[in-house]
């Protein structure tokens, strides 16, 4: 069963297109990483899936229903972001108690254990928390709700490294105990990539890449060597990153469709191949120019 079906989804704010004919599907019980630069449309997409906003055109189905203003979707989806709002009149513990009344699958024991583990105080107010503590509290709500579709939008904002690690582990453990569909958007791909099964890469409101994370590392490869040599071996292949080293050497990241034989030949010609990390591939794929920031400093 597909949890999310998205066809030609477009969202226009004023004159800018936050989402531009976006199409993809997300299957049940997978953890998908939603990756993209700031302004790529990640939050807009998640808010449309959550039923808070409405697309300008195109089609979205969540659990086969139109999500906007849909009570059924609302009951089975939780969207956690770093701008959560909880009533100021309630203490932290009261917020958890209220959440427990709403969500059918809410695990109160888990909520309380996490609450104690991260040393929250039951009488404290949400507004009095630091940024990292707010994120941690949001995470507790998001995990304990055990919604069939759980979406975390930049969940680790402000968390220190230790808490981030705890969060990833808590997420994974609860996912194993209670499989559900999870979407995780984050700037720290290197931190979350081990948790993911699939990756959905957005660029300018469009789907740029949607593949299993395991395939991403083999999707592209780095080649280094003499500029002329590298250019010759790249041939017609898609280049996603170029960098000049010294005056006659070059490093290029290209689509990895070399055969073993070709690689062997290239090595003999003095080229070196190197694997490229997933997060680097994402950075290269989403950057505007092939050379990245270096292009800014090129003088004619």
């Amino acid at each position, binding site marked *: 069963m597909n949890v999310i079906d998205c066809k030609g989804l477009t969202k226009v704010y004023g004159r800018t297109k936050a989402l531009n004919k976006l199409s993809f599907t997300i299957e049940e019980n997978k953890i998908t990483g939603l990756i993209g630069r700031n302004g790529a449309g990640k939050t807009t997409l998640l808010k449309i899936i959550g*039923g*808070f906003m409405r697309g300008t055109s195109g089609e979205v189905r969540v659990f086969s229903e139109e999500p906007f203003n849909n009570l059924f979707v609302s*009951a089975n989806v939780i969207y956690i972001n770093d701008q959560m709002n909880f009533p100021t009149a*309630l203490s932290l513990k009261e917020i958890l108690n209220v959440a427990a009344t709403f969500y059918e699958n809410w695990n109160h024991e888990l909520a309380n254990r996490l609450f104690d583990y991260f040393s929250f105080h039951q009488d404290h107010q949400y507004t009095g928390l630091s940024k990292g503590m707010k994120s941690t509290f949001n995470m507790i709500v998001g995990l304990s709700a055990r919604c069939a579709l759980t979406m975390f939008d930049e969940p680790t904002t402000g968390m220190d490294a230790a808490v981030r690690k705890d969060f990833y582990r808590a997420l994974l453990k609860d996912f194993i105990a209670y499989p559900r569909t999870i979407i995780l958007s984050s700037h720290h791909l290197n931190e979350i990539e081990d948790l993911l099964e699939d990756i959905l890469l957005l660029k300018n409101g469009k789907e740029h890449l949607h593949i299993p994370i395991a395939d991403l590392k083999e999707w592209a490869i780095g080649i280094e060597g003499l500029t002329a040599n590298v250019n010759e071996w790249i041939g017609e292949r898609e280049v996603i990153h170029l960098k000049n080293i010294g005056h006659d050497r070059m490093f290029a990241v290209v689509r990895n469709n070399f055969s073993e034989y070709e690689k062997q030949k290239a090595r003999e010609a003095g080229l070196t191949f190197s694997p490229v990390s997933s997060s680097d591939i994402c950075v290269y794929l989403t950057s505007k120019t092939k050379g990245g920031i270096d292009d800014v400093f090129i003088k004619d």
Partner: protein
Amino acid sequence: MSLSKTSMLDIIKKQYTFKLRAYMQVFMSMVFIQMLGILFSFNGVGMSGGGSNTLSVNVHYYSADIVVAFTIVWAIISAILITTQAYRNDDFVFITNRMSSNFSNILFLLTASIIGGITAIMSTYVMKVLMYVLGRTEYLSSPIAVPEMLIGFGATILYVFLGTAIGYFIGTLVQLNKVFVVLVPGVFIGMIVLGAGSMNGGFFQDMIKFIFMESSFALFFIKIIILVILLFSSSAMLSNRLEVR
């Protein structure tokens, strides 16, 4: 995994209980406003005096009118308040859609109106006690029959509830478009000015006469309820396509 089923009624119930706790500030401000009303009432709503050479009489009339008026203003403001972004975001943090949100808001406002209406009328007793404690000369109070008192409560609650409906409608308009922040007071003042200019009162005054100068309680009740339903349902319809969070 199995998906949660939902019933609208169940969610409205949950939202309502949630809001009773979450919107506590609304009741706090009510207590404050009504105390202010009592304070203002101490001068009396009316006064007449007379006397001879040796005797002078000053008669002060005290009533809950000011407290009721303050409570209606509180009702309008509170209703506007719960339509604002911050409250809406609190609202949409857990399971809901526009319909359950509106319904639970209306239930909440009805509860607030009942509490506000009753306490407003009861404030006369507070005044009597205070007057007695402060030792203000002689005081007379007209005894009220139970049916009359009930009508008093009913009418006050209806006024307050109408206030929330008006406020909720204005608040919804503002959520749709910020232009209404200027437009609504503009139209309101405009109508008063136009009404004052014309000889026979104008539309605005006619409306007020039609609704409030009703001697039959049953008719008054029906008129207010129809008005309230109109206001709330148009608010609900207007906000149905509104985006949140």
